[in-house]
C-alpha cells in the first residue's frame, strides 16, 4: 500500500512538473510583453506533453562508454524522488521521527550526481560549470543547515508536525521574516535558478554541467530540477506559513511561493560570482550566526524566567 501510494504521489508530482513548465513559460512571456505557448489543442495547454514527446523520440547516442554516463542522471532523479518522501499526504502518512535530519541528508547528497554527470561528460565546459556549481552549492549548504538548525531550536524536535503546532499562535513568516528571505535565497542557489544560475552564463559557458545531455537522458535532469523546485516551494510553505497539508490555504500559499520563485526569474539579473561568494561567507553567514546567538539568548532568558 505504501509503495502504491508513493508511486501515485510520484506520478502526480511529475504531472505537476509538466504543467509547471507551462506555468513558468506563460508567466515569463507575459512579463516580457509577449504571448507564451497558446496554440496546441486548447490554448497551449498540451504544450508540455508535446515537448516531452519531442525529447523522448529524439535520436540518442552515447558520447561516453562509461555506464555512469547514463546512470548519473538517473541517480539525480532518484534522489529527487527520495526527497519527496518527506511529504506526508493523506495516503502516505510517514511521520518519521528524524524527518528534518533525513531531509538535510538528502539535500546535501544532491551534489554528487552533478559531480558524476559533469566528470563523465569529458568536456571542459562541463567541468567549468561543475566547479562553479559545486562551490556555490556547498557554500550555501552551510547556510541552509544553520537555518534549519534555527528551526530545530525553535521547535525543539525533528518532526514536521511540531512546526504546525508552534505556528498556531503566530506564523513564522511574521516572527522570523529575515529567515524567510535567507532561506529563499539559499534555496534558489541550491536550485541553480536565476539570479544565481551562474553555471549558465551564456557569454562564458554554454550550458553548464548538462552540456552533453539531450533527448531522453536530459529528461531525468530536467525532471529532477523541477521536482526540487516544487519541493522547495512546499518546504517554504510548511516552515513559514504553518498550514496543514490538507487545507486549501496550504495549496494557495504553495502556489504563491512557486509564483514568487518563477517571477524572480523574470525580474532579476544574474549576479557576479565573487559577489555571490562574498554574500555567502561575509554577509549571510555572519548575519545568521548573530541571529542564532540572539535566539539562543532569548531561549535562555525564557528558561530562566520559568524555572
Amino acid at each position: 500500500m505504501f509503495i502504491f501510494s508513493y508511486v501515485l504521489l510520484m506520478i502526480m508530482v511529475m504531472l505537476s512538473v509538466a504543467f509547471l513548465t507551462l506555468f513558468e513559460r506563460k508567466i515569463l512571456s507575459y512579463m516580457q510583453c509577449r504571448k507564451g505557448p497558446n496554440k496546441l489543442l486548447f490554448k497551449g495547454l498540451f504544450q508540455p506533453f508535446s515537448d516531452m514527446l519531442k525529447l523522448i523520440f529524439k535520436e540518442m547516442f552515447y558520447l561516453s562508454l562509461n555506464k555512469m554516463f547514463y546512470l548519473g542522471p538517473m541517480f539525480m532523479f532518484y534522489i529527487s524522488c527520495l526527497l519527496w518522501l518527506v511529504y506526508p499526504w493523506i495516503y502516505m502518512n510517514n511521520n518519521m521521527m528524524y524527518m528534518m535530519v533525513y531531509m538535510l541528508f538528502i539535500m546535501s547528497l544532491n551534489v554528487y550526481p552533478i559531480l558524476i554527470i559533469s566528470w563523465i561528460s569529458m568536456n571542459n565546459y562541463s567541468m567549468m560549470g561543475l566547479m562553479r556549481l559545486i562551490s556555490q552549492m556547498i557554500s550555501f549548504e552551510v547556510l541552509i543547515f544553520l537555518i534549519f538548525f534555527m528551526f530545530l531550536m525553535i521547535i525543539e524536535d525533528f518532526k514536521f508536525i511540531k512546526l504546525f503546532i508552534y505556528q498556531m499562535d503566530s506564523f513564522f513568516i511574521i516572527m522570523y521574516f529575515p529567515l524567510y528571505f535567507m532561506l529563499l535565497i539559499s534555496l534558489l542557489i541550491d536550485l541553480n535558478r536565476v539570479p544565481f544560475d551562474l553555471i549558465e552564463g551564456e557569454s562564458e559557458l554554454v550550458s553548464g554541467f548538462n552540456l552533453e545531455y539531450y533527448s531522453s537522458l536530459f529528461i531525468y535532469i530536467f525532471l529532477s530540477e523541477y521536482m526540487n523546485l516544487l519541493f522547495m516551494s512546499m518546504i517554504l510553505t510548511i516552515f513559514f506559513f504553518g498550514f496543514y497539508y490538507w487545507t486549501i490555504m496550504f495549496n494557495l500559499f504553495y502556489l504563491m511561493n512557486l509564483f514568487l520563485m518563477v517571477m524572480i526569474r523574470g525580474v532579476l539579473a544574474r549576479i557576479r560570482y565573487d559577489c555571490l561568494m562574498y554574500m555567502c561567507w561575509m554577509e549571510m553567514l555572519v548575519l545568521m550566526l548573530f541571529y542564532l546567538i540572539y535566539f539562543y539568548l532569548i531561549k535562555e532568558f525564557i528558561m530562566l524566567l520559568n524555572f
Partner: protein
Amino acid sequence: MSKAKGPQDLPPKGGYIPFQIERIKLRSIVTGKMGIGIFIAVNVIGMPLYMRTWLRERKHLIEARSRELATLPILFAENDRRTLKQLKHVREVEADVMKDFPYWEVGTFFGEPIYEDAQADTYIKPIFGELYVFTDPKDRPVLEHIHLLP
C-alpha cells in the same frame, strides 16, 4: 502554400501601445532601517507568544512523560505475568512430550538441575530460547519485531 490553422497572433486593434523608454524609479516600500524596526517590534510582540506556546508544549511533554511513568508498573506486571504463563505452558508441553522417555524429570536433565548453586525455588529470568522453545515462530507477537521492519 498551406493555410495556417487557427487564429493568428495579430496586433491589437489600435496597434501596440508605445514602448516605455523612460526609467521607472523603483519603489522601495520597506527600507533596511524599517526592516530593523519591524524586526524589533515583531520580536517584542512575538516572543511572549512564542513563550506561551513553548510552555504549553513543555506541559504536554511533561504530561506525556508522567503518563509513561505511571503506566510503566502495569506494563512490567503484565510482562511478568505473560512470562510466567509461557513458562507454565512450556513445562506442560515438556511433560507431555517426554512422558514416554524413561528417567526424565521435567525442568532438569535426568535429575540434574540447570543451576547447581541456586535454590530450588529461585526465579531465574529465562533466556529467549528457553521461553519460546515449544513455540511456532509464526505465533510470536508481531509487536516484538515490528520496529525493525521498514
